[in-house]
């Protein structure tokens, strides 16, 4: 019920900022969710924090302008103000109001650029995950764990099991340990895709012939869903991402089984950049 009310009165929702962080189990959006999905990584936590600052600033500006417009409409319509004024400019006013937006921009720019740097800095990396985009599935490889790799393909609607979310479920989810600094390498075997997981604050293009780098650290165990976010052809809407975050111990166990399961496999072989170069 609370959630319904906030939809009706967006302004009161401001007070929900704090709560938004832990209200839901997370990993995907919920009915009547108001804001971003809850953060599951340090970067996303900071993004939400910064977004909240922006939101307050921007709502104030819009309110101010709207209020001013309403005042003008009521006060200076042809009936209320039959004799228009003759002023053409006012230097003091002009200087002040060039200054004010500049100040506001500074207030925005400093934390923004700080966070940009934080999100990009890759430190104390403990493991690497390589993500390859293909039309229309993902290939994940674990170069630091023996280099096994596997494809992750959407499960069609009619094969979904009880409780599996539609258009988000894949056959092989990508399993990762929590509280580990993970380096992410992105590339593509064909067109540009984009590996995006909202609750982890990640969204980066995968481009053939290029490797993009990023990092993440998952705070809590859980299932985190994402979708391809760069138009990549007809089935762009059908290559979801499912990150399963587990404890470090469980991860080690999983690696052992996965190594065997995916040994030599890899399905329709994803392109290796070196190979194509030699062609």
């Amino acid at each position: 019920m609370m959630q319904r009310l906030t939809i009706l009165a967006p302004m009161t929702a401001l007070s929900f900022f704090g709560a938004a962080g832990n209200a839901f189990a997370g990993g995907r959006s919920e009915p009547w969710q108001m804001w971003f999905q809850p953060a599951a990584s340090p970067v996303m936590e900071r993004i939400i924090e910064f977004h909240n600052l922006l939101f307050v600033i921007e709502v104030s500006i819009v309110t101010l302008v709207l209020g001013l417009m309403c005042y003008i409409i009521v006060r200076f319509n042809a009936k209320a103000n039959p004799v228009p004024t003759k002023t053409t400019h006012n230097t003091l006013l002009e200087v002040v109001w060039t200054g004010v937006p500049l100040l506001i921009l500074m207030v925005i720019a400093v934390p923004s650029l700080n966070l940009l740097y934080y999100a990009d800095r890759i430190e104390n990396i403990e493991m690497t995950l390589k993500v390859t985009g293909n039309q229309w599935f993902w290939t994940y490889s674990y170069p630091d764990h023996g280099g096994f790799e596997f494809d992750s393909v959407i499960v069609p609607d009619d094969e979904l099991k009880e409780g599996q979310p539609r258009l988000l479920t894949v056959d092989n989810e990508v399993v990762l340990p929590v509280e580990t600094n993970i380096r992410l390498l992105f590339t593509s075997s064909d067109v540009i895709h984009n590996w995006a997981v909202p609750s982890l604050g990640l969204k980066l293009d995968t481009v053939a012939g290029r490797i993009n780098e990023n990092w993440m650290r998952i705070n809590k165990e859980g299932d985190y869903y994402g979708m391809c976010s760069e138009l990549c052809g007809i089935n762009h809407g059908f290559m979801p991402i499912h990150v399963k975050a587990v404890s470090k111990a469980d991860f080690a166990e999983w690696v052992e089984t996965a190594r065997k399961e995916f040994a030599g496999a890899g399905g329709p072989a994803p392109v290796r950049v070196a190979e194509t170069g030699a062609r």
Partner: protein
Amino acid sequence: MAYVAPAEVEQIPPAEVEDVELYHAKSWVTKYVFSQDAKVIAIQYSATAIAIGLVGLVLSWLMRLQLGFPELFDFIEPSDYYQFITVHGMIMVIYLLTALFLGGFGNYLIPLMVGARDMVFPYVNMVSYWVYLGAVILLIVSFFVPGGATGAGWTLYPPQAILSGTPGSEGGIILMLVSLALFIIGFTMGGLNYVVTVLQARTRGMTLMRLPLTIWGIFTATVLALLAFPALLVGAVMMTFDKLLGTSFFMPALVEMGVYLDYGGGSPLLFQHLFWFFGHPEVYIVALPAFGIVSDLISVHARRHIFGYRMMVWAIVGIGALSFVVWAHHMYVSGMNPWFGFFFATTTLIIAVPTALKVYNWTLTLWKGNIRFTLPMLFALAFIVTFVNGGITGLFLGNVVVDVPLSDTMFVVAHFHMVMGVAPLLVVFGGIYHWFPLITGRMLHEGMGQFHFWVTFIGAYTIFLPLHYLGFLGVPRRYFEMGETNFIPESAQDLNAFVTVVALTVGVAQIVFFINLFWSLKNGKLAGHNPWKACSLEWRTAHVPPRHGNFDDLPVVYRWAYDYGVPGADEDFIPQDVPPDRVSTGKGEV
């Protein structure tokens, strides 16, 4: 009247060139079809742009139906959906808004407002329209070639645009690229005309700093377009080579459906830079004319001089210049160097300053004015509110990190529809209500206009505000058949359906506008010579509507275009061509 107090008016320079003889149309065909009269060309441009715009509107309905009611409209295949998206986006941005503002409003207003008889190169101007028409026809034809129109998104990113996983990668993409190239060629002919006419064909006394802001807006936008479109042209040509000749400008080594292709060494990102080097200024190619027109509408209908004219001019020019150094803010998630992100985020934020100045000046123009809530004024006010709204959401997207969760979601769709869809369209409508009396000699019907305004304004908000919210949830853009996923929970899907219903209603309500246009053509109230009591020259022609050649004797300009509410004058406005000693005053002094 700090800028052009009548007392300061120096000697008006003598005419430097003789009045030229205009081409005389001999037959109906040369008068109305292959016409060299900028006003006829303007109508041709506008009619074509609006017609193709209606196609874009219908495409948006189809998309909305699919998004709102996926089960019901399951005959819309993914390939259809992507073709609709692509052609809708292209049409709206380029073939509708660019053509309408520059080819339509530009052609009609530039010669009249600067006091010229016609564009400087009437013949080239005519050719410009016919090339544009060719581009439009090619675009439509692309729907009917095997494989259909391209479904690569209006951004046309390679490699996918020319690979088989994308609809229309056989013929559609080629026709799209050729159509764009034609559009650019046609536009360049027109654009050179507009620029030269503003610079060279102003009448005596019409200094640059006396031009109405409408002209400043259109002029600056044209300069932007002349500089930005070539980047797109280059991109289109190179991609055509990649597709037809097998070059690798944008194509790295890659596979297509499991088969290695013969490409290697190209850079997909190069295309993105070229595209957005055009694409961002394109936003302002649409926005600057809107800025200019709104300034004039507000001034006329509030009976107030524009506040801070000089600042308004510099803000237009400044925004235009800045718009060339922000393009990569569309590529924050492409994996670019963070220093790039740093640079482009900073420049993007800086653009907010001149934009804020414009909003202040509009506000102060209205301040203590004598506001008449005519239809043009309503649309102008609605524009300001919408533009502020849309601009503010741009601040979210301009900051690299906040852009990450929002990029490629419905939030972006909402943002750009607000700033470059709804806002400019409001100005288009405002402009049509304002200048229709000049073009036809009759007023548009007030009641129908009021209905049209409120439905459009409130409707636009009802359609696009909810999309911001969907963006926060993480609902991606360019997604076919989402229905209920957990990205689009049930509650949000209801919202989606609601938006679809509103979009259809608002779209259909536009019929009232067209009925109004046709009805008023015959039955509208006679407008007479200057129904809004405006100062600028387009209202000072001997005949309404103005004839070929515009003026009988070219007017001479003595003041800026904003002498409203001049102290001491008998009337509350003094047109630009009234000499100081002819201003009638009670006291005999101005």
